[in-house]
C-alpha cells in the first residue's frame, strides 16, 4: 500500500485562508492519534503553520485549521490533536467518531509506539464505518533513521495488511509533511467528498454544528477520567 501512495499533482496547492478561491469549501475533520511523544502536536503545527517548535505535552485537545486547495475544491482541515494521555483514552472512541481522516502516528525510533498504533487501530476499527474514515499510518521522526527501531517495510506491510495508507514523515525537518496533507486531501475528496452528505460545506461563520449528531462528539469525552 505504501507504493500506491497518491501522488500530488500540479493543481494542488496549499495556502493560508487568505487565498481562498470562489469554489466550495468543504470541512474535513482530521484527528491525530498515537502514543504520547510521537510527534502529533509537532505534525499538527507543521500542517497548520509549517513550523517546528519544541512543544510541551498537549493538554486536552488542540484545534488547528489549514486550508488546502485542490483543483476542483477547497478543503478546510479542522485538525484535532489529542493529548494521547490515558486520562482521555477511555473516551477517545467518542472523539474520533465522525472524523473523516485519522492519522495513526508512531515514532520510528520507539517500537512500542508502533505496537500502540495497532491498539489504536483496533479501537478505531470498532468505531468507524468502512469508507467513511480514511486512515493513514504515519511513521514520524524519519530524521532519526539512525535510531530506527521500526523498519520502513514493517510499517508498509502493516498498512497494506490493514488497508491503510502509509507514509514516513519528519515533523522536525518537514519532510513528507506537506505531501502527507496533500495526499490526504486528494484521498478524502475522492473517497468521501463525492458521497452524499460526506463532507459538509464550510461557511465563514459556521453555525454550531451540533445537530450533526454523528459528527465529532469529542466534547462528550475529553473530559471524564476513569481508571
Amino acid at each position, binding site marked *: 500500500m505504501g507504493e500506491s501512495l497518491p501522488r500530488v499533482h500540479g493543481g494542488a496547492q496549499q495556502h493560508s485562508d487568505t487565498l481562498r478561491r470562489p469554489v466550495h469549501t468543504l470541512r474535513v475533520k482530521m484527528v491525530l492519534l498515537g502514543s*504520547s511523544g510521537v510527534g502529533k502536536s509537532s505534525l499538527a503545527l507543521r500542517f497548520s503553520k509549517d513550523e517546528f517548535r519544541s512543544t510541551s505535552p*498537549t493538554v486536552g485537545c488542540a484545534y488547528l485549521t489549514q486550508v488546502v486547495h485542490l483543483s476542483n475544491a477547497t478543503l478546510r482541515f479542522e485538525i484535532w*490533536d489529542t*493529548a494521547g494521555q490515558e486520562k482521555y483514552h477511555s473516551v477517545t472512541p467518542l472523539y474520533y467518531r465522525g472524523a473523516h481522516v485519522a492519522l495513526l502516528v508512531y515514532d520510528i525510533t520507539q517500537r512500542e509506539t508502533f505496537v500502540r498504533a495497532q491498539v489504536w487501530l483496533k479501537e478505531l476499527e470498532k468505531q468507524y464505518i468502512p469508507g467513511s474514515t480514511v486512515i493513514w499510518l504515519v511513521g514520524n521522526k524519519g530524521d532519526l533513521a539512525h535510531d530506527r527501531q521500526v523498519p520502513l517495510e514493517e510499517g508498509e506491510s502493516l498498512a497494506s495488511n490493514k488497508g491503510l495508507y502509509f507514509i514516513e514523515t519528519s515533523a522536525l525537518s518537514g519532510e513528507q509533511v506537506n505531501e502527507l496533507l496533500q495526499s490526504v486531501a486528494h484521498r478524502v475528496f475522492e473517497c468521501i467528498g463525492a458521497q452524499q452528505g460526506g463532507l459538509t460545506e464550510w461557511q465563514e461563520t459556521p453555525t454550531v454544528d*451540533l445537530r450533526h449528531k454523528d459528527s465529532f*462528539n469529542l466534547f462528550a469525552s475529553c473530559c471524564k477520567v476513569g481508571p
Partner: protein
Amino acid sequence: MKVSVDIRHSVQHGDGTKPDWDGIMETANHQEGEAAAVKIGDSPLESNQPADSLAASFSLLENHMFPDPVESNGSAAVSRIEPVNSQPPDVSAEHLGLDEKPPSDQVMKLDPEKTKTECQNDVSMQPADGTTEDDATDNDQSDSGEFVVTMLAKAKLEEQGIGVKGRSSPLLEAGTQESSSFTSHRDEDVTADSWRQHRKHVFVLSEAGKPIYSRYGSEEALSSTMGVMMALVSFVQSGDNIIRSVYSDEHTVVFLQKGPLVLVCVSSSRQSEQQLQGELLYVYYQIISMLTQASISRIFEHKKNYDLRRLLAGSEKILDGLLNLVDSDPSFLLSAVHCLPLASSLRDSLSQILQKAITPNLVFSILIAKNQLLTIVQEKTVIEDSRLEPADVHLLLNLIGASSAFQAGEIWTPICLPLFNPDCYFYAYISYLDPPECTVCLLLLSTDKEAFYSVAECKRKIEEAMMAQNSLSLIAKAGTYSVSQVGVSDLRHFMYKPFDVPDNYRQLTQFTSPEMEAPYSSEEEKMRLLDLYRYMHGRIHSTSRPLKLIYHVAERETLLAWVTSKFELYTCFSPLVTKACAITAITKLLRWIKKEEDRLFIRYPPKYSTTPNPSKSSRGGKSDQQDSTDNGFLSLL
C-alpha cells in the same frame, strides 16, 4: 544530627483541650538531647516512643537523600557554628517583639500553638489572625514605638542568625542551578550531589507508597526514598497522628496528606512550615485541577495501589512549572492575583468586549497579557456571592504558561477549579489573540463540554471588537511599572495587598508590585529579595506569634512589613534608610497607591448573564455548597 519532628493529632482539638505544647516540647527536648526532638500531639507520655523511632526513620530518610558524612556525624556544634559563620556580624536588626529564641532553637520548632486548625496554611486569607488592629492608615505613630524595640532586639538577633540574609551563598547556588537545569530534571541522577543540593524537593506519593511525582529525578529512581517517607507517614498514622513536619539542621521536611495522596517537601529554603505546606497544597490543587478530587478518590477506593502516573503522564511539566512559579512569583506567597496595570478606561473597554461576547453556559471570560490578568468577567448567577479564588486563577495561569502547545491552536480542555468545586470540570477554551507573539491570551470557561464551537465563536467576536478598538496595540504598551514612579528615593520595591478592593466589594484578592529593578535585576538577587519577603511573611503570619509590623535591617537592604485590617504591605528600602524616612516613605507610598488604584487593580469587574442551564452547572448542587464556600476555602488552604 539534630532532628525534630512535629506531629499533629488528626483529631482536631477544641479550644478547651489545647495540648500543652510547650511542656511536650520540653520533654522531648530533654529526652532526645542532641539526637532528636519530637513534637507530637496529644499525650506527652506517648511522645517518647514514636520520637525515637521517628528520629531513626528520619535519619534514614536523610541518609537516603543526603548521605553526607559530615552532616550525619554532625554534632550540635556544627549546626550552631554554621549559621553564625555564614553571616557577617553586626549587620542586622529586627523587630522581633518578644519572640526571641535561644540559638539552639534553630533546630527545634518552638511555635507549637498550632491548635488553631484553620491555620494549616500560611496563605494570608485572615488578616493578622486574631490580632485585631486598630484602623490602619493612621497608626504610623502608635506603631513607631515598636521600632524602638528593634534596636533592643538587635544584639540578640545577631546571635540568633536566623533569617535568610546570611545564607546568600547557598541560595545563590540553588537559584542558578534551578534556572539552568530547568528542562531535564526528569533524567537527573538521584545519587549525584547536584540532586541533593536542590533547594526544594517535592514528592507526591500515594497512601500505598507508590511514587506519583518528584520534582527532580525520576520517581522510579527515588522509590526507596519515597518508601522511607511513606514508612514515616504510616507509622505516625497508625497512632492516629498525622505527621506534619520534620526539622534537621539543614532541612525542613513538611508532609501534607490530602485524601489518598501524600505530599512531601524537603526544603533548605528556611521557609516556614505553613509556607511550605501552602506550596504543597498548590501542588495538590494542580493535580486536582487535572483529575478532580472525586475521581482520585474513586480510583484509590477501587485500587489502593493504583499508579496515578498513568493518568498524570505528560502533566509533569505542569507541576514542574507550578513549582518554579511558586519559587519565583510572590502571587503564591500572598495568595493574591497580580493584574497588569492598565488605564481604567482601557480595562473597562476590554471588559465590555468580553461582556458582549457570550454564549450559553459561559461562566468566566478572562483576558491575560504577559502572564498577568487584564480583566475578568464572570457569569452572574454561578458565582453570585462567591468570588473566584486566587489559587484557582494561579492554577489557570500556570496551565497556560506551562503548555507552549497552547500557542499552536485553540485549546479545549477539561479543567477543574479545586477551590470553586474540587469535583467538577469546567471546559476551558484557550487561545492567543496576537500570534505569533502570543502574549495576549483569552481564556473562556464554560460548563458545557460540547460548547467548543460556540465558545470559539465568542473568541472571534472578541477578536473583531479588539481589532476595531485597536486594543492589542494599547495592551502591548501596558506593562509593569517602576518603583521610581512612587517618587520615594530610598524605596526599592514593595508588594501591597489590599484585603478588599474597593469599598468592601467582594472580589478577587489582588496585589500590586513594581518591577524588580536594580539591585534586584539578576535572578539571584530577585530570589534573595523574595526570600527576604518570604521570611518577613513567615514572621507576620507566624501562628505562634503573629506580628503586625516588622522592621528588619538586613545587610544590603532594610525591609518593613506591615499588616493591618485593610492591607498587607512589604517594602524594601536601601540599607541607609532611617526609621523616620521609612515611615514617611510608607505614608507617601500608600497615598500614591490610593491615587493609582484605578490603574493598578481591577476595580469593578463586570458580570454577564448567560443563564446557564442549571443541570449543566459545574457547581452542581450549588445552593447547598455556596454557603460553605468560604469556610471550605479557609479550612482547605
